[in-house]
């Protein structure tokens, strides 16, 4: 068994071609000395098991689309069948997702030769850059419940029925975020707080291929959005522009936000086995999130709230740092602010309130450094970060400053956080 796990956990730098930049000129396929590159009418793709990373195709590519690499467990390398369906490259797997594939946190990428051309110039300055993603744990807290994963795959999705769909912000169409409740009826679909599910939008894309599934963290606790029911909730922001502010109509998010009660959706999952909450009754939880990154935080908070109500809780602390552009765009603002102060310590940061200086979650964390430091040192405290990739580094630097500000050795603290499954990062 050990060897099987080890084989799964071998990492490769998988060579991929960016379908958004490639012009399908065939130069790479004609150049490749080992026949690793092939194509159909839609995409040019690289066979991971054939490519020997000789780099012969890199220089002749006229577009630069050829020079893309993803760290992947060898066993889960993207097959050409999947690549042929892509409209864009998938993001790098997070440490958490890699962990879910059985990759040890200190796993080393197995490559014949490190792709020289893929090295970014800034890495050559001799100074190791601060790599926030490296601090994320790949194991769950010791007291976490066991997570079920991959009960329904892309080839065998299950069906859920929409039983609720409301805008959970006070924002208008372009910035609204929906709280969507899906019911699984009699189909078993056990999910824990912090896990995610995949939704497959119906129909086909512009080229007639089925859409790929989009992943969403569940926003409801383990016993259902409505306690005792087989349902989950999702927090879905309607995507009307991309990260650069260009107009884009997100296929899955608009599909979900437009669903009516009674509609059915195709669902796969559950996914994730390390971003899980501690069950230990005296454990503390520090949550840092932006926007829809609040979904797992809502799930954990709600589970703690239900436990507290039933008297089964012994007073672990909850601390929340929550950022949004404005108060109106903050999901669940109303319900959140009505939670008792002795239950949860809420810190809200708004980066676009007119007439106010921009405030980010890491700014609030710096202000609360004195309170964060003891939690960093406490083996019963767990940290969760979820939201936009851009905040990850700032949040980690704030934790580092909080540690060193109170005389803790950050690298030592970070080492135990990672080893003990106490710091979890989920950014996109």
């Amino acid at each position, binding site marked *: 068994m050990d060897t099987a796990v080890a084989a799964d956990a071998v990492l490769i730098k998988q060579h991929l071609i960016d379908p958004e930049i490639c012009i399908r000129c065939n130069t790479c396929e004609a150049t490749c000395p080992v026949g690793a590159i092939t194509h159909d009418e839609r995409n040019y793709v690289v066979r991971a098991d054939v490519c020997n990373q000789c780099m012969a195709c890199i220089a002749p590519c006229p577009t630069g689309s050829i020079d893309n690499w993803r760290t992947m467990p060898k066993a889960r390398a993207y097959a050409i069948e999947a690549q042929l369906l892509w409209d864009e490259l998938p993001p790098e797997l997070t440490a958490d997702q890699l962990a879910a594939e059985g990759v040890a946190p200190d796993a080393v990428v197995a490559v014949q030769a490190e792709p020289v051309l893929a090295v970014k110039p800034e890495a050559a300055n001799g100074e190791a850059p601060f790599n926030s993603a490296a601090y994320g744990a790949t194991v769950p807290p010791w007291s976490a419940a066991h997570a079920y994963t991959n009960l329904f795959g892309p080839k065998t999705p299950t069906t859920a029925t929409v039983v609720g769909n409301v805008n959970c912000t006070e924002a208008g169409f372009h910035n609204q975020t929906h709280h969507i409740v899906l019911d699984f009826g009699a189909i078993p679909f056990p999910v824990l707080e912090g896990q995610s599910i995949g939704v497959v939008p119906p129909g086909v894309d512009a080229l007639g291929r089925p859409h790929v599934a989009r992943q969403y963290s569940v926003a409801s606790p383990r016993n259902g959005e409505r306690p005792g029911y087989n349902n989950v909730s999702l927090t879905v922001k309607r995507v009307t522009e991309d990260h650069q502010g*260009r107009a884009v109509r997100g296929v899955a998010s608009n599909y979900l936000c437009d669903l009516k009660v009674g509609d059915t959706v195709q669902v796969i999952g559950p996914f994730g086995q390390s971003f899980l909450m501690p069950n230990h009754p005296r454990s503390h939880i520090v949550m840092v999130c932006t926007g829809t990154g609040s979904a797992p935080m809502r799930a954990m908070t709600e589970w703690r709230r239900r436990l507290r109500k039933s008297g089964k809780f012994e007073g672990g602390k909850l601390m929340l740092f929550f950022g949004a552009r404005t108060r109106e765009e903050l999901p669940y603002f109303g319900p959140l602010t009505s939670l008792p102060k002795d239950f949860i310590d809420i810190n809200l940061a708004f980066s676009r309130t007119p007439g106010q200086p921009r405030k980010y979650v890491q700014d609030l964390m710096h202000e609360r450094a004195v309170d964060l430091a003891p939690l960093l040192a406490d083996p019963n405290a767990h940290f969760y970060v979820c939201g936009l990739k851009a905040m990850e580094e700032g949040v980690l630097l704030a934790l580092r400053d909080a540690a060193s500000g109170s005389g803790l050795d950050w690298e030592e603290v970070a080492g135990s956080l990672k080893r003990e499954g106490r710091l979890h990062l989920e950014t996109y």
Partner: protein
Amino acid sequence: MAIDYSQKIPNNVQLADDRTLQRALEQWQPNFIQWWDDVGPDESAKLDVYLRTATSVDPQGWAHFDYVKMRDYRWGIFLNPAEADRKIHFGDHLGEAAWQDVPGEHRANLRRIIVTQGDTEPASVEQQRHLGLTAPSLYDLRNLFQVNVEEGRHLWAMVYLLQKYFGRDGREEAGALLERTSGDENNPRILGAFNEKTPDWLAFFMFTYFTDRDGKFQLAALSESAFDPLARTTKFMLTEEAHHMFVGESGVSRVLQRTAQVMNELRTDDPGKVRAAGAIDLATLQRYLNFHYSVTIDLFGADQSSNAATFYSSGLKGRFEEGKRSDDHVLKGQTYKVLEVQNGQLVEKDVPMLNALNEVLRDDFIKDSVAGVGRWNKVLDKAGLPQRLVVPHKAFNRKIGALAGIRMSPEGRVVGDDEWKAHEAEWLPSAADRAFVGSLMGRVVEPGKFAGWIAPPAVGINRQPVDFEYVRFG
């Protein structure tokens, strides 16, 4: 005077050992530089341009990037590595050994094919010579110049074949390639599309997308040739041609991206408002597309051609990806459908396949072009816009073949003169369209800055950032 040929003219054709070829090139080279100075890129002599130079045909030597003055560009002569015991794989000579020299009976036809291909290379440099003065960014200026020097190298490649294999008349044809001039009334370039103006950058992007793609298909067909030096030369040229099509495809794509952004910001699809905001409206883009597409598909020649049949059967020119096809590679007794107009209606008729090989290549080109237009439409789709670009009907605006001169709507409906006149300005770029696009053209030379009608590219050249100083003004 001793010249280090491998330094001055990078090559893999043993130029240093070939005195005859050296003498021919020594005579031709000063005329080439003179031609470059006279009708090459305007006001470019002092610029240091971040260019890619091929110094050998292997992947390591393929792409050497550095700042060079274009006049000092090292135009090399490269043939793809030889394939041992290569056999002719189509036509009447199927199965025989490929020719390492020109067979006497095919000499005239081969020379004609090489001259026709060679003539297009300097022609496009001439057509594009003023564009450097209105480049929308340093990145684009560099791409234009890269295209220009590579067209120059393609000329060298054809001249090499003429001088090496065609004796005295080959040398004369090589000279004449520098004497004809695009658009010259008395001594024009051979093919129509290469006498059209490339007056603005939208035309340049459309040209590199469509017309250089014709180049791709012609070169691909020649890379199947039984005449091995031609096959190997054109195979290497294809790798460079890919860059030209990249410039076109990404160029139009970036124009679309900017237009879509403006349409979304203003929440309008009114061409007037889009124009007022300094972007190019979709209707104008469609008209440019209609023009360049129709002019380019004429380049494939008449839909029925006995020359095409001869070229194929005698092994001079194959089909696109001949080697990947699984028919008999002789094509005798087979038929192909071509279009003609009967009683005011377009009808298909079966003609002998061998005579229809121009049409076969044209249809392969159309398939390839349409796929790229689909990728352009993804830009609109991603921006949430319902509009789409389409290629016009194959019979639209044709000047060559059975469909020449027929009045046809872009959808493929035969129309009368009155209807044509009433709609011509909706279907093809008008003088007013060209004047408008021309009015947007202004030079942008600050690194990382782009003219308002075009979006920046997704990535830079050779992993350099987008705001890299791709051209230095000395």
